Protein backbone atom coordinates (compact mmCIF):
# COMPACT_ATOMS: atom_id res chain seq x y z
CA UNK A 1 0.00 0.00 0.00
CA UNK A 2 1.88 3.01 -1.25
CA UNK A 3 1.60 6.28 0.66
CA UNK A 4 -0.38 9.06 -0.94
CA UNK A 5 1.75 12.01 -2.01
CA UNK A 6 1.16 15.45 -0.54
CA UNK A 7 -0.34 16.68 -3.78
CA UNK A 8 -3.22 14.26 -3.42
CA UNK A 9 -3.98 15.69 0.00
CA UNK A 10 -3.91 19.17 -1.46
CA UNK A 11 -6.66 18.01 -3.78
CA UNK A 12 -8.56 16.06 -1.12
CA UNK A 13 -8.57 18.99 1.27
CA UNK A 14 -9.38 21.32 -1.64
CA UNK A 15 -6.35 23.43 -0.82
CA UNK A 16 -6.40 25.63 -3.88
CA UNK A 17 -5.73 29.37 -4.23
CA UNK A 18 -9.21 30.20 -3.07
CA UNK A 19 -9.03 28.09 0.08
CA UNK A 20 -5.53 29.39 0.79
CA UNK A 21 -6.71 32.97 0.55
CA UNK A 22 -9.73 32.26 2.70
CA UNK A 23 -7.62 30.60 5.36
CA UNK A 24 -4.99 33.32 5.33
CA UNK A 25 -7.71 35.90 5.76
CA UNK A 26 -9.27 34.08 8.66
CA UNK A 27 -5.92 33.65 10.35
CA UNK A 28 -5.22 37.33 9.55
CA UNK A 29 -1.85 36.59 7.96
CA UNK A 30 -0.76 39.69 6.09
CA UNK A 31 2.21 40.55 3.92
CA UNK A 32 3.53 42.58 6.87
CA UNK A 33 3.52 39.48 9.03
CA UNK A 34 5.46 37.52 6.44
CA UNK A 35 8.01 40.27 5.94
CA UNK A 36 8.47 40.65 9.67
CA UNK A 37 9.14 36.95 9.97
CA UNK A 38 11.52 36.97 7.02
CA UNK A 39 13.50 39.73 8.72
CA UNK A 40 13.89 37.49 11.75
CA UNK A 41 15.46 34.67 9.80
CA UNK A 42 19.01 35.32 11.00
CA UNK A 43 17.77 35.20 14.58
CA UNK A 44 15.97 31.97 13.91
CA UNK A 45 19.00 30.38 12.29
CA UNK A 46 21.15 31.38 15.26
CA UNK A 47 18.84 29.60 17.68
CA UNK A 48 17.50 26.76 15.55
CA UNK A 49 19.70 24.04 17.03
CA UNK A 50 18.91 25.02 20.60
CA UNK A 51 15.18 25.36 19.94
CA UNK A 52 14.95 21.96 18.28
CA UNK A 53 17.10 20.30 20.96
CA UNK A 54 14.83 21.73 23.60
CA UNK A 55 11.76 20.49 21.78
CA UNK A 56 13.16 16.99 21.65
CA UNK A 57 14.21 17.11 25.28
CA UNK A 58 10.53 17.45 26.04
CA UNK A 59 9.54 14.62 23.71
CA UNK A 60 12.30 12.22 24.68
CA UNK A 61 11.88 12.75 28.39
CA UNK A 62 8.24 11.86 28.30
CA UNK A 63 7.83 8.07 28.35
CA UNK A 64 4.77 7.90 26.11
CA UNK A 65 6.13 10.17 23.41
CA UNK A 66 9.63 8.71 23.50
CA UNK A 67 8.39 5.50 21.88
CA UNK A 68 8.09 7.26 18.55
CA UNK A 69 11.85 7.76 18.47
CA UNK A 70 13.37 4.38 19.14
CA UNK A 71 16.98 5.05 18.22
CA UNK A 72 19.59 7.79 17.88
CA UNK A 73 19.57 7.69 14.10
CA UNK A 74 15.86 8.42 14.06
CA UNK A 75 16.31 11.27 16.49
CA UNK A 76 19.14 12.79 14.45
CA UNK A 77 17.19 12.55 11.24
CA UNK A 78 14.04 13.98 12.73
CA UNK A 79 15.93 16.84 14.40
CA UNK A 80 17.38 17.80 11.06
CA UNK A 81 13.94 17.84 9.47
CA UNK A 82 12.59 19.76 12.42
CA UNK A 83 15.28 22.43 12.04
CA UNK A 84 14.32 22.82 8.39
CA UNK A 85 10.72 23.10 9.41
CA UNK A 86 11.55 25.70 12.04
CA UNK A 87 13.56 27.84 9.62
CA UNK A 88 10.71 27.47 7.14
CA UNK A 89 8.52 29.54 9.46
CA UNK A 90 10.79 32.47 8.66
CA UNK A 91 10.85 32.04 4.90
CA UNK A 92 8.60 35.00 4.44
CA UNK A 93 6.06 33.23 2.30
CA UNK A 94 2.74 31.52 2.72
CA UNK A 95 1.82 30.23 -0.70
CA UNK A 96 0.65 26.86 -2.04
CA UNK A 97 4.19 25.54 -2.12
CA UNK A 98 4.55 26.42 1.56
CA UNK A 99 1.26 24.68 2.29
CA UNK A 100 2.30 21.54 0.41
CA UNK A 101 5.43 21.44 2.48
CA UNK A 102 3.51 21.75 5.73
CA UNK A 103 1.14 18.93 4.80
CA UNK A 104 4.05 16.58 5.08
CA UNK A 105 4.09 17.07 8.83
CA UNK A 106 0.55 15.75 9.22
CA UNK A 107 1.10 12.85 6.88
CA UNK A 108 4.37 11.84 8.53
CA UNK A 109 2.84 11.91 11.98
CA UNK A 110 -0.16 9.86 10.93
CA UNK A 111 2.11 7.35 9.32
CA UNK A 112 4.02 6.71 12.51
CA UNK A 113 0.86 6.87 14.58
CA UNK A 114 1.77 10.03 16.48
CA UNK A 115 -1.46 11.61 17.67
CA UNK A 116 -2.12 15.37 17.50
CA UNK A 117 -1.81 15.81 21.26
CA UNK A 118 1.94 15.31 20.96
CA UNK A 119 2.72 17.73 18.25
CA UNK A 120 0.35 20.36 19.56
CA UNK A 121 2.32 20.12 22.78
CA UNK A 122 5.47 20.44 20.70
CA UNK A 123 4.16 23.58 18.99
CA UNK A 124 3.41 25.01 22.41
CA UNK A 125 7.05 24.60 23.42
CA UNK A 126 8.24 26.17 20.17
CA UNK A 127 6.21 29.24 20.91
CA UNK A 128 7.43 29.52 24.49
CA UNK A 129 11.05 29.22 23.42
CA UNK A 130 10.61 31.76 20.67
CA UNK A 131 8.89 34.13 23.03
CA UNK A 132 11.92 34.01 25.30
CA UNK A 133 14.39 34.59 22.46
CA UNK A 134 12.41 37.39 20.90
CA UNK A 135 12.06 39.31 24.14
CA UNK A 136 15.63 38.52 24.93
CA UNK A 137 16.98 40.06 21.72
CA UNK A 138 14.51 42.63 20.53
CA UNK A 139 12.94 45.75 21.96
CA UNK A 140 9.61 44.91 23.65
CA UNK A 141 7.39 46.50 20.99
CA UNK A 142 9.30 44.76 18.22
CA UNK A 143 9.31 41.47 20.09
CA UNK A 144 5.58 41.66 20.64
CA UNK A 145 4.88 42.38 16.97
CA UNK A 146 7.16 39.52 15.95
CA UNK A 147 5.49 37.17 18.40
CA UNK A 148 2.04 38.07 17.12
CA UNK A 149 3.09 37.30 13.54
CA UNK A 150 4.73 34.06 14.67
CA UNK A 151 1.62 32.98 16.51
CA UNK A 152 -0.56 33.45 13.43
CA UNK A 153 1.68 31.38 11.21
CA UNK A 154 2.19 28.58 13.74
CA UNK A 155 -1.56 28.27 14.22
CA UNK A 156 -2.01 28.22 10.47
CA UNK A 157 0.55 25.42 10.21
CA UNK A 158 -1.18 23.50 12.96
CA UNK A 159 -4.51 23.71 11.18
CA UNK A 160 -2.92 22.17 8.10
CA UNK A 161 -1.20 19.43 10.06
CA UNK A 162 -4.47 18.56 11.78
CA UNK A 163 -6.51 18.53 8.58
CA UNK A 164 -3.99 16.27 6.94
CA UNK A 165 -3.72 14.00 9.95
CA UNK A 166 -7.48 13.54 9.97
CA UNK A 167 -7.65 12.85 6.25
CA UNK A 168 -4.73 10.41 6.39
CA UNK A 169 -6.31 8.72 9.37
CA UNK A 170 -9.58 8.22 7.50
CA UNK A 171 -7.60 6.72 4.64
CA UNK A 172 -5.93 4.27 6.98
CA UNK A 173 -9.27 3.23 8.38
CA UNK A 174 -10.65 2.81 4.87
CA UNK A 175 -7.68 0.66 3.92
CA UNK A 176 -8.16 -1.50 6.97
CA UNK A 177 -11.83 -1.86 6.19
CA UNK A 178 -10.97 -2.91 2.65
CA UNK A 179 -8.50 -5.48 3.97
CA UNK A 180 -11.13 -6.88 6.33
CA UNK A 181 -13.60 -7.14 3.51
CA UNK A 182 -11.10 -9.01 1.38
CA UNK A 183 -10.26 -11.40 4.18
CA UNK A 184 -13.89 -12.26 4.72
CA UNK A 185 -14.31 -13.11 1.06
CA UNK A 186 -11.44 -15.49 0.34
CA UNK A 187 -11.51 -16.22 -3.37
CA UNK A 188 -9.15 -19.02 -4.30
CA UNK A 189 -7.83 -19.88 -7.70
CA UNK A 190 -8.13 -23.67 -7.79
CA UNK A 191 -7.21 -24.11 -11.41
CA UNK A 192 -6.45 -22.07 -14.49
CA UNK A 193 -9.46 -19.76 -14.80
CA UNK A 194 -11.49 -21.50 -12.12
CA UNK A 195 -12.17 -19.75 -8.85
CA UNK A 196 -13.52 -21.14 -5.60
CA UNK A 197 -15.31 -19.07 -2.99
CA UNK A 198 -16.03 -20.98 0.22
CA UNK A 199 -18.65 -19.04 2.14
CA UNK A 200 -18.58 -19.42 5.88
CA UNK A 201 -20.90 -17.91 8.44
CA UNK A 202 -24.13 -15.98 8.24
CA UNK A 203 -24.69 -13.78 5.26
CA UNK A 204 -26.68 -10.61 5.66
CA UNK A 205 -27.59 -8.18 2.93
CA UNK A 206 -24.55 -6.03 3.50
CA UNK A 207 -22.08 -8.90 3.43
CA UNK A 208 -23.78 -10.38 0.39
CA UNK A 209 -23.19 -7.16 -1.52
CA UNK A 210 -19.52 -7.11 -0.55
CA UNK A 211 -19.12 -10.74 -1.53
CA UNK A 212 -20.58 -10.08 -4.95
CA UNK A 213 -18.31 -7.07 -5.54
CA UNK A 214 -15.15 -8.88 -4.46
CA UNK A 215 -16.03 -11.91 -6.53
CA UNK A 216 -16.71 -9.86 -9.67
CA UNK A 217 -13.38 -8.05 -9.36
CA UNK A 218 -11.56 -11.35 -8.98
CA UNK A 219 -13.32 -12.87 -11.98
CA UNK A 220 -11.91 -10.10 -14.16
CA UNK A 221 -8.52 -10.20 -12.46
CA UNK A 222 -8.17 -13.96 -13.03
CA UNK A 223 -10.10 -14.00 -16.30
CA UNK A 224 -12.12 -16.77 -14.71
CA UNK A 225 -14.43 -18.88 -16.81
CA UNK A 226 -16.02 -20.69 -13.89
CA UNK A 227 -16.70 -19.81 -10.29
CA UNK A 228 -17.58 -22.35 -7.61
CA UNK A 229 -19.44 -20.96 -4.64
CA UNK A 230 -19.53 -23.41 -1.76
CA UNK A 231 -22.20 -22.78 0.84
CA UNK A 232 -21.60 -25.79 3.09
CA UNK A 233 -20.40 -23.38 5.77
CA UNK A 234 -23.47 -21.15 5.68
CA UNK A 235 -25.80 -22.09 8.55
CA UNK A 236 -29.03 -20.62 7.19
CA UNK A 237 -30.10 -20.30 3.61
CA UNK A 238 -33.33 -18.35 3.46
CA UNK A 239 -35.08 -16.42 0.70
CA UNK A 240 -32.80 -13.44 1.14
CA UNK A 241 -29.60 -15.48 0.86
CA UNK A 242 -30.97 -17.42 -2.10
CA UNK A 243 -31.89 -14.15 -3.79
CA UNK A 244 -28.37 -12.84 -3.29
CA UNK A 245 -26.88 -16.03 -4.69
CA UNK A 246 -29.09 -15.71 -7.75
CA UNK A 247 -28.10 -12.06 -8.23
CA UNK A 248 -24.43 -12.87 -7.85
CA UNK A 249 -24.71 -15.71 -10.34
CA UNK A 250 -26.35 -13.42 -12.87
CA UNK A 251 -23.72 -10.72 -12.35
CA UNK A 252 -20.94 -13.28 -12.84
CA UNK A 253 -22.72 -14.44 -16.00
CA UNK A 254 -22.78 -10.87 -17.31
CA UNK A 255 -19.02 -10.86 -17.04
CA UNK A 256 -18.94 -14.02 -19.13
CA UNK A 257 -18.34 -16.68 -16.50
CA UNK A 258 -20.45 -19.51 -15.09
CA UNK A 259 -21.28 -20.14 -11.47
CA UNK A 260 -21.58 -23.52 -9.80
CA UNK A 261 -23.16 -23.69 -6.37
CA UNK A 262 -21.89 -26.51 -4.19
CA UNK A 263 -22.33 -27.64 -0.63
CA UNK A 264 -26.07 -28.03 -0.92
CA UNK A 265 -26.97 -30.33 1.91
CA UNK A 266 -30.24 -32.25 2.18
CA UNK A 267 -31.39 -29.67 4.70
CA UNK A 268 -30.66 -26.72 2.41
CA UNK A 269 -32.23 -28.48 -0.58
CA UNK A 270 -35.44 -28.97 1.41
CA UNK A 271 -35.48 -25.38 2.63
CA UNK A 272 -34.98 -23.92 -0.82
CA UNK A 273 -37.72 -25.96 -2.48
CA UNK A 274 -40.12 -25.43 0.41
CA UNK A 275 -39.51 -21.69 0.26
CA UNK A 276 -40.43 -21.80 -3.38
CA UNK A 277 -37.20 -20.22 -4.52
CA UNK A 278 -36.32 -21.14 -8.08
CA UNK A 279 -32.63 -21.67 -8.50
CA UNK A 280 -32.97 -24.02 -11.42
CA UNK A 281 -31.06 -21.52 -13.57
CA UNK A 282 -27.94 -22.25 -11.56
CA UNK A 283 -25.59 -25.23 -11.75
CA UNK A 284 -25.83 -26.89 -8.37
CA UNK A 285 -24.04 -29.81 -6.72
CA UNK A 286 -23.97 -31.27 -3.29
CA UNK A 287 -20.29 -32.14 -3.16
CA UNK A 288 -17.48 -29.71 -3.83
CA UNK A 289 -15.57 -32.34 -5.78
CA UNK A 290 -18.46 -32.64 -8.22
CA UNK A 291 -18.52 -28.90 -8.59
CA UNK A 292 -14.84 -28.79 -9.47
CA UNK A 293 -15.31 -31.58 -11.96
CA UNK A 294 -18.16 -29.67 -13.61
CA UNK A 295 -16.07 -26.51 -13.68
CA UNK A 296 -13.21 -28.34 -15.37
CA UNK A 297 -15.63 -29.73 -17.94
CA UNK A 298 -17.04 -26.26 -18.65
CA UNK A 299 -13.63 -24.67 -18.94
CA UNK A 300 -12.24 -27.61 -20.85
CA UNK A 301 -14.92 -27.30 -23.41
CA UNK A 302 -14.03 -23.66 -23.90
CA UNK A 303 -10.34 -24.41 -24.17
CA UNK A 304 -11.21 -26.97 -26.85
CA UNK A 305 -13.23 -24.31 -28.68
CA UNK A 306 -10.30 -21.92 -28.54
CA UNK A 307 -7.86 -24.54 -29.84
CA UNK A 308 -10.26 -25.41 -32.64
CA UNK A 309 -10.65 -21.74 -33.46
CA UNK A 310 -6.91 -21.16 -33.58
CA UNK A 311 -6.39 -24.28 -35.71
CA UNK A 312 -8.98 -23.16 -38.23
CA UNK A 313 -7.43 -19.70 -38.33
CA UNK A 314 -4.05 -21.23 -39.04
CA UNK A 315 -5.43 -23.42 -41.77
CA UNK A 316 -7.09 -20.50 -43.48
CA UNK A 317 -4.07 -18.25 -43.23
Amino acid at each position, binding site marked *: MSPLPEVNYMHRLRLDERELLSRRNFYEITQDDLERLAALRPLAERHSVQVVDSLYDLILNHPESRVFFPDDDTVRRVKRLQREYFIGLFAGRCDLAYVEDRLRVGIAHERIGMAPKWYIGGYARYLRLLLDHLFGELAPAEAQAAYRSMLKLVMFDMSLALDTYIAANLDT*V*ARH*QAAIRELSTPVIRVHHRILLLPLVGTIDSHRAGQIMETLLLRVVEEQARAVIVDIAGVPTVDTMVADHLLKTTEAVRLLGAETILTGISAQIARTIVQLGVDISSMHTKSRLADGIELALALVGRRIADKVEHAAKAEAEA
Partner: protein
Amino acid sequence: MAAQVLSRAELAIVTEDDVVTVRRRVRDLAHQRGLDSFATAAITTAASELARNVLMHARRGTAVVEEIANDQRKGLRLEFRDQGPGIANLERALAGGNSTVRSLGLGLSGSKRLVDDFHIDSTPGVGTVVTVVKWARF
Protein backbone atom coordinates in the same frame (compact mmCIF):
# COMPACT_ATOMS: atom_id res chain seq x y z
CA MET B 1 -30.57 13.18 9.27
CA ALA B 2 -29.05 16.63 9.42
CA ALA B 3 -26.32 16.81 6.84
CA GLN B 4 -24.04 19.69 6.03
CA VAL B 5 -24.08 20.77 2.40
CA LEU B 6 -20.57 21.19 1.01
CA SER B 7 -21.55 22.15 -2.50
CA ARG B 8 -24.71 22.53 -4.54
CA ALA B 9 -25.42 22.72 -8.23
CA GLU B 10 -28.65 22.95 -10.16
CA LEU B 11 -28.82 21.38 -13.58
CA ALA B 12 -31.69 21.77 -16.03
CA ILE B 13 -33.14 18.65 -17.61
CA VAL B 14 -34.62 19.59 -20.95
CA THR B 15 -32.80 17.53 -23.58
CA GLU B 16 -31.09 14.16 -23.85
CA ASP B 17 -27.75 15.92 -23.62
CA ASP B 18 -28.77 17.16 -20.19
CA VAL B 19 -29.11 13.58 -19.00
CA VAL B 20 -25.50 13.06 -20.06
CA THR B 21 -24.48 16.26 -18.27
CA VAL B 22 -26.15 15.15 -15.06
CA ARG B 23 -24.46 11.78 -15.34
CA ARG B 24 -21.04 13.34 -15.84
CA ARG B 25 -21.43 15.73 -12.95
CA VAL B 26 -22.55 12.99 -10.59
CA ARG B 27 -19.74 10.71 -11.68
CA ASP B 28 -17.12 13.41 -11.13
CA LEU B 29 -18.42 14.29 -7.68
CA ALA B 30 -18.64 10.62 -6.71
CA HIS B 31 -14.95 10.25 -7.55
CA GLN B 32 -14.08 13.35 -5.57
CA ARG B 33 -16.00 12.12 -2.56
CA GLY B 34 -14.03 8.89 -2.67
CA LEU B 35 -16.86 6.55 -3.64
CA ASP B 36 -15.47 3.28 -5.02
CA SER B 37 -16.24 2.06 -8.53
CA PHE B 38 -19.35 0.12 -7.43
CA ALA B 39 -20.85 2.98 -5.49
CA THR B 40 -20.00 5.43 -8.27
CA ALA B 41 -21.65 3.23 -10.89
CA ALA B 42 -24.69 2.85 -8.62
CA ILE B 43 -25.30 6.54 -7.96
CA THR B 44 -24.46 7.58 -11.52
CA THR B 45 -26.83 4.99 -12.94
CA ALA B 46 -29.56 6.01 -10.51
CA ALA B 47 -29.05 9.64 -11.55
CA SER B 48 -29.30 8.64 -15.19
CA GLU B 49 -32.52 6.68 -14.59
CA LEU B 50 -34.13 9.49 -12.62
CA ALA B 51 -33.07 12.22 -15.03
CA ARG B 52 -34.40 10.16 -17.90
CA ASN B 53 -37.67 9.67 -16.02
CA VAL B 54 -38.06 13.42 -15.73
CA LEU B 55 -37.47 13.82 -19.45
CA MET B 56 -39.79 11.01 -20.50
CA HIS B 57 -42.70 11.75 -18.23
CA ALA B 58 -42.57 15.43 -17.50
CA ARG B 59 -40.66 16.69 -20.55
CA ARG B 60 -38.56 19.02 -18.38
CA GLY B 61 -37.30 19.39 -14.84
CA THR B 62 -34.33 20.10 -12.63
CA ALA B 63 -31.64 18.06 -10.97
CA VAL B 64 -30.06 19.41 -7.78
CA VAL B 65 -26.69 17.81 -7.05
CA GLU B 66 -25.24 18.28 -3.57
CA GLU B 67 -22.12 17.06 -1.83
CA ILE B 68 -23.04 16.42 1.79
CA ALA B 69 -21.35 15.40 5.01
CA ASN B 70 -22.42 14.26 8.45
CA ASP B 71 -20.28 13.50 11.50
CA GLN B 72 -18.91 10.36 10.02
CA ARG B 73 -18.85 10.43 6.29
CA LYS B 74 -19.34 12.26 3.07
CA GLY B 75 -21.72 11.55 0.23
CA LEU B 76 -23.96 12.83 -2.49
CA ARG B 77 -27.58 13.93 -2.35
CA LEU B 78 -29.51 14.26 -5.57
CA GLU B 79 -32.92 15.76 -6.07
CA PHE B 80 -34.97 15.41 -9.25
CA ARG B 81 -37.94 17.72 -9.51
CA ASP B 82 -40.48 18.26 -12.19
CA GLN B 83 -43.92 19.75 -12.66
CA GLY B 84 -45.17 16.86 -14.70
CA PRO B 85 -48.30 14.77 -14.42
CA GLY B 86 -47.22 13.13 -11.17
CA ILE B 87 -47.64 9.49 -10.26
CA ALA B 88 -51.11 8.41 -9.23
CA ASN B 89 -50.28 5.06 -7.69
CA LEU B 90 -46.83 5.35 -6.15
CA GLU B 91 -46.86 1.97 -4.49
CA ARG B 92 -47.63 0.17 -7.70
CA ALA B 93 -45.03 2.17 -9.61
CA LEU B 94 -42.35 1.40 -7.05
CA ALA B 95 -43.22 -2.28 -7.03
CA GLY B 96 -42.39 -2.52 -10.70
CA GLY B 97 -45.24 -0.70 -12.29
CA ASN B 98 -48.29 -1.29 -14.36
CA SER B 99 -47.73 -1.45 -18.08
CA THR B 100 -48.56 2.18 -18.85
CA VAL B 101 -45.96 3.60 -16.54
CA ARG B 102 -43.74 0.55 -16.68
CA SER B 103 -40.59 2.32 -17.67
CA LEU B 104 -41.20 4.91 -14.98
CA GLY B 105 -41.75 2.19 -12.43
CA LEU B 106 -38.64 0.35 -13.41
CA GLY B 107 -36.56 3.50 -13.23
CA LEU B 108 -37.85 4.26 -9.75
CA SER B 109 -37.73 0.80 -8.23
CA GLY B 110 -34.39 0.12 -9.83
CA SER B 111 -32.89 3.36 -8.55
CA LYS B 112 -34.23 2.71 -5.09
CA ARG B 113 -32.07 -0.39 -4.83
CA LEU B 114 -28.96 1.46 -5.87
CA VAL B 115 -28.96 4.15 -3.19
CA ASP B 116 -28.82 4.39 0.59
CA ASP B 117 -31.79 6.69 1.03
CA PHE B 118 -34.71 7.17 -1.33
CA HIS B 119 -37.61 9.55 -0.93
CA ILE B 120 -40.38 10.43 -3.35
CA ASP B 121 -43.10 13.02 -3.20
CA SER B 122 -45.58 12.97 -6.03
CA THR B 123 -48.92 14.68 -6.52
CA PRO B 124 -50.95 14.05 -9.67
CA GLY B 125 -51.35 17.24 -11.63
CA VAL B 126 -48.71 19.04 -9.62
CA GLY B 127 -45.38 17.30 -9.96
CA THR B 128 -42.79 14.98 -8.51
CA VAL B 129 -39.68 15.28 -6.36
CA VAL B 130 -37.36 12.33 -5.96
CA THR B 131 -34.50 12.63 -3.47
CA VAL B 132 -31.71 10.06 -3.18
CA VAL B 133 -28.59 9.84 -1.04
CA LYS B 134 -25.46 7.74 -1.50
CA TRP B 135 -22.74 7.70 1.12
CA ALA B 136 -19.08 6.91 0.60
CA ARG B 137 -18.24 3.62 2.22
CA PHE B 138 -16.41 4.28 5.46
